[in-house]
C-alpha cells in the first residue's frame, strides 16, 4: 500500500491512517513513518506535545487508535526518541545528577536540577513526580500540599492531571504509611477495566500487581506525553520484555535496544543488551576502587570495607552494590552500626538494610520503610535497584523476573550478579576479579574455581558458595549435606543463617519432601518468624492440599503450618486430626500429656490459636456444638494457668462463648433475621490501615483550615477521566473533605463487602442463593398452579388436564397457556428480585441501580459527617464507631424499606398475577366451572400473603451484634461458675436470672462473682459436695438497679455471732468509707473490699450498696448496682 499517496488524499482520516501503521510492527512502522515524516499529522500527533512548556499541556486526551501491537506502539515512541536523542542524553545526565543529589540530601541542588530539566528539556510527569517527593523531603507535607495546590491551579481543570498529581503527592507523603498507600491504591483501582487498571498500577504501584500484559495499552496511553515520559516508559517496558524470553515481542525489544543504543547513552540500555547476550559483560566499566572494595569483602577484609565505604558512598551514592558489603562487614565485625556522615537519606537506607540483614525486631518496620522509599522515588534507578534487593527478602508475588532484574538493569556497571539472574549468560567469563569468578562459578556450576578460591576467601564464604553452587546446579541432596556441615559453624551471622534456612527449605521443596519443609518452616516460624518473610506459604499449602495430605505426616508442625498459612478451618482440622491420629489421642486437652521442653510452646500455641470452636467443630467425636464449646472452655481454663498474663483475653473468650450460645437461642426464638454483620470484627480487621488514614485526614483538616487545597474526586469515575476532556464535570473538591469522604467510603466498603463479615456475603448466602426463589415458587407450587421448565420450555401441568376431562380440549389448552404465562410472570419477578433488587448499589457496584440496598451516598451525606468531624473532637475509635452507628441505622432503615417492599410491592404483584390468572381462567371457562383450580388459586393467594408477611419479609432484619460488646448476667454468672468449677468440680450453684440485662465491661462483673464464689468455697467450711449456693441476678426496671444476691450454706462449726459482727462491719465500711487498699491487698481476706473497689473504680458506679443476712445456717449477700452507667470508664 502506498501510504504517502493515501495520506494526502483529501478524504483520508490522516490520524487513523498514521495510527494504522502501528499494526505493521516496529520495523515497518519506522520505515513507513519516515516516508511521510513531513506530513502535518506526523508533526502534530506522532511528534505532538513532545516538549510541553506548561503543566496544563502534560496530558492530552485526544483521539487515540488502538493497534494492539506492542512493536508498532514502541515504534511510535522510538521515532521521536531517536529524532530528539540529544535532548534525551541531556536529560539522562541531569537525571543522574538529580538522583545523586537526592541520595546525598542536597535538596537545594536537586531543586535546581529539576528546574533545569524542565527548562532545558520540558515539563513532564516524571519531573513533577520527583518534585513532589523532593519537596516533601526538603520541607515536609505542607509544602507538598502547597505545591499540589499551585499545580492544581495550573492544570486548567484537567481532571486526569489532577488525579495523577494527587497520587504523586500522596505517595510522597512521609506520614502516609506504605501499607496505607497500597491499600488506598488497591481500593481506587479495584473496579477498573484490566488494561487501565494495569496501566495505573504500572505508574503508581508497580510491584503491587503480579502480572502485566497490556504493554501496548501503556504505550498508547503515553503516546502523546512529553519526550521524557515517553522515553522512561519505553525503557521500563523494555525491561519487562527483555526479562521474558518467551514473550512474543522479545526479539523486537532487542531490535529497539540496538537502535536506541546507537544514539543514546543510557547504562540501562547497555545492561539490557548484556542481559540478552548482545554484549558481553566485563569489569572494564567498573571503577577500580569499587573492584578493590569488593575484593576486600570477598577475601574477608571486613575492616577495610568498613573503612573504605564512607568515601566510596560519597563518590558513588547511587551504586547500591556497595551498601551490602559494608553492612555485612559491620555485622561480621560485631560492630555497632555507625552514623555515616554522608546524608540523612543514605543513613536511612543503611539503617533499614541493617535491620533486614540482621533480621532484628525492626525487620518488618524496615521493610515497610524501604518500600515507602521505593514508592516515593519510583522513577529513579537507585530505588528500582532497592526494589530488586528488597525482593530477595520479602515475598513479592510476581511471575515476572523483571523485579529482581531491576538490580542489574539499573546498575551503573556490569554487575556479575547477571550470571545468577540469567544463567543462560553463564557460559563464558573472561574477568579475573573474584566477584565475577565466584558468581560465574555458582551459576555455571563449575566447582573448579570454588575449590581454588578456598585459599583466597574465608572458609565460611567458600562453603557458602559451594552451597549456592549445589543449589543452582539442582544437586539438592548434596546441598543439604553441605548445609548440615556448614550449620555446625559457630561464626554464622543472621544473614548466613537466613540464607541456609532458605536453601534448606527450597531443597526440600524441590525434592518434594514436604514433610521436612513443613517441619523446618514451622519451627522457624515459632523461633524467628522474620527468616520466613520470603517463603510463599500458599505454595506449600496448595501442594499439601493437592496431595490430600499424603506427603506429610501428622505433627505439631503441620498444625502450626496450616495455621500460619491461614488455611481454612477445615484444613486446620485435617492437620489437627492427622496429629491426633499419630499420637493416638481423641481430644485436644490430651495434648497436654505431651508437653515437654521441646514441644511446650508448640502445644500451647496450638491450644490457643488452633483449637477453637470453628476447627474443633469438624471433629465428630463431639456430638453437639455444646460439647465443642465446653471443650474450648476447658482449654481456655487450662491456658489461664499456663499463660497467666493473658488471663483477661481467655476469660473474655469464655464469656463470649457463653454469650454466643445464649444469643443463638435468643435469635432462634425471637428473630429470623438473616442479616448479621459483625461490626466488632469489621472494626478490627483493618484497624492499623484505617488509623493511619484517619491521622492523615486530621492533618488535612488542620491544614485546610488556613490553606486552600483541592483533590480530584475520582471515586468511581477514573474511567471517565480518559474520555473526552470537554465533557468532564468539575471534580476538584476540598482536600480534607475528600479525605473524609474516602475514609467514610472505605469503612462503608468494608461494612458492605468484607469477605468474612460484610453485608453482601449475608445477602448472597442467606437470601439470594435459592432461599427466596424456593420460598416463593414453593408456596405457589403446593397448589399446582405453576409450571416447570424443561429445556427452557414451560411444561403443561398434567394434573389439571387429567382433572379437566369435563372441559373441551380447547379450554384445557387455553388454561394451560394461562398457567404457563403466569409461571413466566412469577419467574421473571423472582429473577428481578434476585438480580436487581436484593443487591447492593454503591460506589463500588454501580450497575445495580434498582437495588434495595442503596448505599450510594451523595456528597451532602459526606458533608454532614465532615462538618461533624470538624466540630467535634473525635478520636479514631469514636469516629469509626460513629460511622458504624450511622451505617447500622441506615441499614435498619433499608431493611425496613425492604420488608415494606416485600409486604406491599412484591405481595401486591403476586396477588395481581394470581388474580389476573383467576380472571383469565374464568373468562376461558365461560359457563363451565373448575372449582378445584379456582379454589387452589384462591388458597395460593392466602398462602403467599402469609409467606411474605410472616416469613420472607422477616428475613430482612439485622441480627444485632451488640451482644458482642454487651454481656448478660446469665453469661457473666455462668462464666464465673465455669472458672471456679474448674478447680472444684462439685461447685454447681443454682443460677436464677429471670430479668437479665446486658452490660459493658463484663470482665469486672466476672471478677466480682469469682471473688464471691471463692469466698464461699474458702469460708463456708463445707466439703465441696456439700456446698449449696443459689445466685440471683435480676434487673429491677423500676429502680434501674441490678440486684444480685448470693446465698450459701454454712458449716455448723462456724460461729454465727462472730460472722454477723464481721458482716456488720463490712456493711458499715461499704457505705461510709472508700475502699481500703491495705485490706484489698491482704491475701486470704474476704474479698469484699476488692468487690467494692471494682464497683467504685472499674465499673465507675458510686451508689452501689451491700447488705447481708444470716438465716437458718445460710449466709446471703446482697449487692445492688445502679445501671445508669452502662459503659465502663
Amino acid at each position, binding site marked *: 500500500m502506498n501510504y504517502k499517496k493515501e495520506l494526502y488524499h483529501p478524504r483520508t482520516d490522516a490520524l487513523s491512517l498514521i495510527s494504522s501503521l502501528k499494526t505493521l510492527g516496529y520495523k515497518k512502522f519506522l520505515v513507513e513513518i519516515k516516508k511521510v515524516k513531513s506530513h502535518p499529522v506526523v508533526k502534530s500527533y506522532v511528534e505532538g506535545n513532545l516538549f510541553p512548556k506548561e503543566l496544563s499541556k502534560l496530558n492530552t486526551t485526544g483521539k487515540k487508535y488502538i493497534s494492539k501491537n506492542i512493536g508498532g506502539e514502541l515504534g511510535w515512541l522510538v521515532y521521536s526518541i531517536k529524532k530528539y536523542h540529544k535532548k534525551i542524553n541531556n536529560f539522562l545526565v541531569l537525571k543522574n545528577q538529580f538522583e545523586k543529589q537526592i541520595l546525598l540530601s542536597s535538596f537545594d541542588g536537586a531543586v535546581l536540577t529539576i528546574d533545569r530539566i524542565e527548562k532545558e528539556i520540558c515539563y513532564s510527569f516524571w519531573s513533577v513526580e520527583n518534585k513532589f517527593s523532593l519537596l516533601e523531603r526538603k520541607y515536609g507535607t505542607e509544602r507538598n500540599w502547597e505545591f499540589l495546590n499551585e499545580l492544581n491551579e495550573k492544570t486548567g481543570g484537567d481532571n486526569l492531571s489532577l488525579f495523577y498529581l494527587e497520587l504523586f503527592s500522596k505517595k510522597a507523603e512521609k506520614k502516609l504509611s506504605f501499607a496505607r498507600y497500597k491499600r488506598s491504591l488497591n481500593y481506587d483501582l479495584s473496579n477498573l477495566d484490566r488494561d487501565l487498571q494495569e496501566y495505573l498500577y504500572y505508574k503508581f504501584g508497580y510491584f503491587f500487581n503480579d502480572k502485566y500484559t497490556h504493554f501496548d495499552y501503556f504505550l498508547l496511553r503515553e503516546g502523546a506525553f512529553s519526550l521524557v515520559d515517553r522515553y522512561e516508559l519505553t525503557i521500563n517496558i523494555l525491561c519487562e520484555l527483555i526479562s521474558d524470553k518467551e514473550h512474543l515481542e522479545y526479539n523486537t525489544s532487542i531490535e529497539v535496544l540496538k537502535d536506541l543504543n546507537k544514539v543514546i547513552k543510557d547504562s540501562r540500555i547497555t545492561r539490557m543488551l548484556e542481559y540478552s547476550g548482545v554484549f558481553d559483560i566485563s569489569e572494564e566499566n567498573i571503577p577500580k576502587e569499587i573492584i578493590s572494595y569488593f575484593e576486600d569483602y570477598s577475601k574477608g577484609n571486613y575492616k577495610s570495607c568498613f573503612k573504605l565505604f564512607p568515601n566510596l558512598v560519597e563518590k558513588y551514592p547511587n551504586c547500591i552494590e556497595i551498601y551490602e558489603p559494608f553492612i555485612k562487614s559491620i555485622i561480621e565485625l560485631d560492630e555497632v552500626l555507625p552514623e555515616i556522615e554522608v546524608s540523612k537519606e543514605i543513613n536511612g537506607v543503611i539503617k533499614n538494610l541493617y535491620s533486614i540483614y540482621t533480621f532484628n525486631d525492626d525487620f518488618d518496620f524496615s521493610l515497610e520503610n524501604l518500600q515507602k522509599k521505593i514508592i516515593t522515588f519510583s522513577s529513579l534507578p537507585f530505588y528500582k535497584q532497592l526494589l530488586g534487593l528488597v525482593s530477595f527478602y520479602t515475598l513479592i508475588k510476581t511471575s515476572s523476573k523483571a523485579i529482581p532484574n531491576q538490580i542489574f538493569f539499573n546498575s551503573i556497571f556490569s554487575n556479575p550478579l547477571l550470571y545468577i539472574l540469567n544463567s543462560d549468560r553463564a557460559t563464558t567469563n573472561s574477568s579475573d576479579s573474584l566477584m565475577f569468578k565466584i558468581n560465574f562459578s555458582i551459576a555455571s556450576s563449575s566447582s573448579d574455581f570454588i575449590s581454588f578460591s578456598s585459599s583466597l576467601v574465608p572458609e565460611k564464604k567458600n562453603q557458602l558458595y559451594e552451597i549456592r553452587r549445589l543449589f543452582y546446579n539442582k544437586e539438592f541432596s548434596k546441598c543439604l549435606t553441605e548445609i548440615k556441615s556448614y550449620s555446625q559453624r559457630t561464626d554464622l551471622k543472621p544473614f548466613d543463617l537466613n540464607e541456609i534456612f532458605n536453601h534448606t527449605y527450597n531443597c526440600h521443596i524441590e525434592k518434594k519432601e514436604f514433610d521436612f519443609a513443613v517441619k523446618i518452616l514451622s519451627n522457624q516460624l515459632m523461633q524467628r518468624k522474620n527468616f520466613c518473610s520470603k517463603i510463599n506459604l500458599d505454595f506449600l499449602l496448595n501442594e499439601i492440599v493437592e496431595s490430600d495430605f499424603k506427603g506429610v505426616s501428622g505433627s505439631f508442625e503441620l498444625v502450626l503450618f496450616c495455621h500460619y498459612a491461614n488455611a481454612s478451618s477445615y484444613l486446620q482440622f485435617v492437620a489437627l486430626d492427622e496429629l491426633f491420629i499419630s499420637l493416638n489421642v481423641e481430644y485436644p486437652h490430651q495434648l497436654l500429656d505431651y508437653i515437654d521442653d521441646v514441644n511446650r510452646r508448640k502445644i500451647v500455641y496450638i491450644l490457643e490459636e488452633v483449637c477453637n470452636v470453628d476447627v474443633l467443630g469438624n471433629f465428630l467425636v463431639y456430638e453437639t456444638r455444646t460439647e465443642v464449646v465446653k471443650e474450648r472452655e476447658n482449654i481456655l481454663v487450662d491456658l489461664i494457668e499456663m499463660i497467666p498474663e493473658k488471663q483477661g483475653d481467655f476469660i473474655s473468650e469464655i464469656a463470649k462463648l457463653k454469650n454466643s450460645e445464649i444469643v443463638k437461642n435468643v435469635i432462634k426464638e425471637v428473630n429470623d433475621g438473616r442479616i448479621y454483620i459483625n461490626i466488632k470484627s469489621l472494626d478490627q480487621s483493618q484497624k492499623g490501615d484505617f488509623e493511619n488514614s484517619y491521622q492523615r485526614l486530621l492533618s488535612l483538616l488542620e491544614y485546610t483550615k488556613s490553606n486552600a487545597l483541592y483533590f480530584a474526586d475520582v471515586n468511581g469515575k477514573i474511567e471517565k477521566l480518559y474520555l473526552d476532556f470537554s465533557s468532564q464535570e468539575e471534580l476538584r473538591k476540598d482536600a480534607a473533605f475528600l479525605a473524609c469522604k474516602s475514609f467514610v467510603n472505605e469503612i462503608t466498603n468494608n461494612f458492605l463487602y468484607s469477605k468474612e463479615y460484610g453485608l453482601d456475603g449475608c445477602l448472597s448466602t442467606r437470601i439470594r442463593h435459592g432461599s427466596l426463589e*424456593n420460598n416463593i415458587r414453593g408456596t405457589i407450587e403446593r397448589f399446582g398452579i405453576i409450571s416447570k421448565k424443561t429445556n427452557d420450555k414451560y411444561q403443561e401441568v398434567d394434573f389439571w388436564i387429567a382433572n379437566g376431562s369435563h372441559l373441551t380440549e380447547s379450554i384445557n389448552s387455553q388454561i394451560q397457556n394461562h398457567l404457563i404465562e403466569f409461571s413466566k410472570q412469577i419467574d421473571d419477578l423472582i429473577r428481578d428480585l434476585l438480580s436487581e433488587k436484593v443487591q447492593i448499589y454503591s460506589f463500588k457496584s454501580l450497575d445495580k441501580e434498582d437495588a434495595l440496598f442503596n448505599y450510594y451516598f451523595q456528597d451532602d451525606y459526606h458533608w454532614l459527617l465532615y462538618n461533624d468531624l470538624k466540630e467535634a473532637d473525635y478520636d479514631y475509635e469514636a469516629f469509626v464507631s460513629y460511622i458504624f452507628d450511622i451505617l447500622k441505622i441506615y441499614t435498619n432503615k433499608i431493611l425496613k424499606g425492604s420488608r415494606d417492599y416485600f409486604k406491599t410491592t412484591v405481595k401486591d404483584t403476586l396477588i395481581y398475577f394470581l388474580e389476573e390468572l383467576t380472571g383469565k381462567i374464568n373468562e376461558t371457562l365461560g359457563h363451565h366451572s373448575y372449582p378445584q383450580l379456582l379454589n387452589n388459586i384462591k388458597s395460593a393467594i392466602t398462602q403467599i400473603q402469609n409467606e411474605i408477611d410472616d416469613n420472607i419479609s422477616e428475613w430482612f432484619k439485622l441480627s444485632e451484634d451488640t451482644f458482642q460488646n454487651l454481656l448478660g448476667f446469665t453469661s457473666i454468672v455462668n462464666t464465673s461458675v465455669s472458672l471456679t468449677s474448674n478447680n472444684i468440680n462439685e461447685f454447681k450453684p443454682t443460677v436464677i436470672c429471670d430479668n437479665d440485662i446486658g452490660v459493658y465491661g463484663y470482665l469486672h462483673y466476672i471478677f466480682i462473682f469469682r471473688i464471691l464464689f471463692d469466698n464461699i468455697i474458702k469460708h463456708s467450711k463445707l466439703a465441696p459436695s456439700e456446698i449449696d449456693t443459689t445466685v440471683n441476678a435480676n434487673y429491677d426496671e423500676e429502680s434501674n438497679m441490678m440486684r444480685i444476691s448470693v446465698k450459701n450454706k454454712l458449716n455448723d462449726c462456724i460461729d454465727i455471732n462472730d460472722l454477723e459482727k464481721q458482716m456488720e462491719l463490712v456493711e458499715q465500711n461499704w457505705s461510709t468509707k472508700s475502699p481500703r487498699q491495705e485490706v484489698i491487698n491482704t491475701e486470704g481476706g474476704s474479698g469484699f473490699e476488692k468487690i467494692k473497689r471494682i464497683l467504685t473504680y472499674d465499673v465507675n458506679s458510686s451508689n452501689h450498696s451491700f447488705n447481708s443476712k444470716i438465716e437458718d445456717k445460710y449466709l446471703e449477700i446482697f449487692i445492688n448496682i445502679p445501671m445508669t452507667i452502662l459503659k465502663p470508664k
Partner: protein
Amino acid sequence: MSLKILLIEDDKKKIEDISTYIMEKYPKGKLTIEKSFRDGLKQIKDFEFDILLLDMTIPKWGDSVVGGSIEYENFGGFNIMKEMKRKNRTLPTILITMFNEFGVGDNFLSLETINNLCEKQFDFYKGLVFYSSKNENWKTSLNELL
C-alpha cells in the same frame, strides 16, 4: 435390592423436590436426609449407602439450622468429599447445587471450576446437577447420572 441414598441438603424446597423425584424413581429405595455438614459426615461414617446426593453450601451444625446464626460452609460439600477420600469412606457422589458460584472475593469459584476440581480430585464423583425450582432440567441431569 433397595437402593440406599443419602441426601445432604438444608433447603426445604429442594429436599421436597429431590425426595419426590427419588421416591418416584426408586419406590423401594431408602432415602436418608441430613441437613448439615456434621450430620451428613456422621451418616457416611456410621452407615453404608449406595449413593450420595450432596449440596455444596450447607450449614456446619445440625442443631442451629433455624435463625440468623446459621454458619454456612461455603465449600461444605467439597470438604465432605475430601473427608470421604481422606477417611477412605467413599461412595458415588452427585453434587446438586442451586448456586452459580461459590464463595466471595478472592475465594470465588465458578460452577465449572468446582466441577473440574471434583472431577480431578475424586474418582467417586459422578457429576454435577444444577437445580432450580423453576425448571425440571435438573431431573434429566440427575437421571443421567443415576
